[in-house]
């Protein structure tokens, strides 16, 4: 189907199904129950899932395939956001031009940064990308304030020119982002018993983009180009001995993944038209690395799982305060509940970053292959048991390396 082999097509259909039915899947708890705060089926959250999914999938193209660990990818998100914002300020509130410009501009920046950084590999590459990202960040905070808004960030205003659109709506408000007239924040809610499912135009737009991005990723993974990238990861020296120059391939994939990040940044402002420099901070770069690793670097579906896991965890954990904790443990004896709250409290709410750091360490230490590898291991356990029972008679005829 669509040039995909059978397994890939099945995977793609599963992801597609998850995207389409996300408002149902992420809303398993009825509104009235105490567990409803674990629901993630509201538009903001689902948009974020799709956006970071795109970001992580693009990052995985670079890190997962070539093994080049970039520590500055958040810079491209910021660049995409800012350039998209300027399209919205100067041209039109239609999101399509904003997204295209966001991708192009971040692609150009990726070309420049990649051209310099990719002259070195290994740790040098990581440090160079980190340095460039920090450079973008501190510049956008200081000198580039007229372009980026500095500390306050960039937002729309009533006197923006917007040549192809209107500066103001008829009622004198700032216009909202739209897709050829379809308002991005439009949503319909369907109530089924105690459940309310929200279908938002913004989410489905992001989901369509995500579906396209993921399809392109699969094609890239399976293409000769993807094979070249894997060759770079496994043995760059041998590759150059066979007469292939790895540099153009790494630069190309760096630009591609920078454009994915720019697309994600553009989508962020298409959903919520404001941009701030803190999007470019190195912790944001670290977060996308974590998403990719947590899901499984170098696998197709891993980064999506990782991004979903992290985004979900972040939004859930950072909303838990001490009152919520006391509600949970209210039934327990007072001393015990106080003790539990005291233990858990530093890890939730504002302490979300502590949990993030711990998850980061645990994943790298115990599960370097991420969720996908974990799933395979568990699957392998069951399968081995089965095969041991059935294939005792047939001696294993696995060819050696």
């Amino acid at each position, binding site marked *: 189907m669509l040039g995909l082999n059978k397994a890939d097509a099945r995977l793609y259909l599963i992801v597609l199904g998850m995207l389409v039915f996300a408002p149902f899947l992420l809303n398993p708890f009825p509104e009235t129950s105490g567990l409803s705060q674990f629901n993630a089926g509201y538009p903001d959250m689902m948009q974020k899932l799709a956006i970071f999914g795109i970001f992580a999938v693009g990052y995985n193209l670079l890190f997962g395939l070539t093994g080049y660990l970039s520590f500055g990818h958040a810079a491209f998100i910021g660049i995409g956001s800012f350039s998209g914002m300027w399209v919205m300020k100067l041209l039109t509130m239609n999101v399509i031009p904003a997204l295209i410009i966001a991708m192009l501009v971040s692609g150009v920046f990726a070309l420049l940064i990649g051209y310099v950084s990719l002259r070195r590999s290994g740790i*040098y590459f990581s440090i160079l990308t980190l340095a460039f990202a920090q450079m973008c960040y501190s510049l956008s905070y200081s000198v580039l304030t007229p372009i980026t808004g500095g500390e306050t960030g960039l937002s729309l205003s009533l006197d923006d020119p917007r040549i192809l659109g209107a500066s103001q709506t008829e009622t004198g408000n700032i216009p909202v982002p739209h897709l050829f007239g379809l308002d991005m924040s439009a949503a319909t809610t369907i109530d089924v018993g105690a459940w309310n499912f929200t279908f938002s135009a913004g989410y489905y737009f992001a989901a369509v983009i995500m579906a396209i991005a993921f399809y392109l990723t699969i094609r890239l993974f399976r293409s000769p180009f993807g094979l070249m990238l894997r060759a770079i990861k496994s043995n760059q020296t041998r590759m150059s001995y066979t007469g292939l120059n790895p540099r153009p391939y790494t630069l190309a994939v760096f630009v591609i993944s920078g454009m994915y990040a720019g697309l994600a940044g553009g989508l962020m402002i298409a959903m919520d038209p404001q941009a701030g420099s803190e999007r470019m901070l190195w912790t944001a770069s670290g977060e996308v690395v974590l998403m990719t690793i947590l899901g499984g670097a170098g696998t197709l579906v891993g980064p999506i799982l990782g991004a979903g896991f992290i985004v979900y965890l972040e939004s859930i954990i950072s909303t838990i305060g001490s009152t919520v904790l006391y509600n949970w443990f209210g039934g327990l004896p007072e001393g015990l509940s106080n003790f539990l709250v005291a233990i858990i409290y530093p890890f939730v709410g504002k302490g979300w970053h502590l949990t993030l750091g711990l998850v980061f360490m645990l994943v790298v230490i115990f599960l370097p292959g991420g969720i996908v590898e974990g799933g395979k291991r568990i699957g392998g356990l069951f399968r081995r048991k089965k095969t041991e029972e059935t294939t005792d008679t047939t001696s294993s005829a696995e060819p050696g390396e």
Partner: protein
Amino acid sequence: MEAIILQVLNGLDKGSAYALIALGLTLIFGTLGVVNFAHGALFMLGAFVAVTLRRVFNLSFETIDETQTDFLGNPMAVQTPYVEHWFGPEVGSFLIDWSVPIAVLVAIPIMALIGVVMERGLIKHFYKRPHADQILVTFGLAIVLQEIVKAFYGANPIPTPAPEAFVGSFDFGVLLGFDPFTIMYPYWRLVYFGFSAIIIGIVFAFLRFTTFGMVVRAGMADRETVGLLGIDIDRRFVIMFAIAAVVAGLAGVMYTPILSPNYHIGMEFLVLSFVVVVVGGMGSLAGAVAAGFLLGILQSFASMSQVIEIIPGINQVVIYLVAVVVLLTRPRGLMGRKGVMEE
């Protein structure tokens, strides 16, 4: 001329901090072959040893003093720190005033212990893993350490003043024959520079003139052969990790009067220190120190208002620009050796 000297002096204290952190990074990298992203967190922990010690010294109990009255006419409650109560007012106030230098002594065993625990508990398991894994796990550790400190001390910078004796500025211009008040330099920055010069001297002397240092240097050059000679090189490398942690910690302790520490002070220094290491040459101790001072001074020149007028924003990016130029023209860094981290 005055302006130039002033900028050189201004660059020295930042340069000293870069040099100390970069020295530790290079030590760890050269001996253990591990890229330590948590090194900035060690700097931060050192700074918070000073903060904690000052708080401990300032722990006080309250007494009602009948002879004095506050503005409402009630007897005034007087706070007396325990240290003044135990050791007498003179010694007590001396301890509080000199808490930062005293913290240096306290920090040495604490940082050494943290270093050993970190190496044995975490880094040890990552020798055989790829560099990407080392970067990621130490990055995670840095976040965890930062957040723990944030949970205890809050997110705001905590002012930690230098001893009274070092408050104020030294008129450096008079020494060189300029007019008075042209080149003023705070005493504490002078102290910081002297302190870091001593630390760097000690580390270098230790590596050059002791048998232990010789073995470590041999291990840096060829770990396998040293191991074959029957020397337990791993144990020595653990000690080197502890030394690197102590160096970073002391740099942090002494830096507190210059910049009030908050929980992410370490990361700000770490990114720059990595750049310093890269510019100096991976694995070269002398290169790390030289590049640290060089970039510190360069940064202070770039912060001059005359320079900023010509090229706005240069003070924010000059270090990164230098790093890019150096890496493109001399990929091994200023003093890097062949065969170290070439891949």
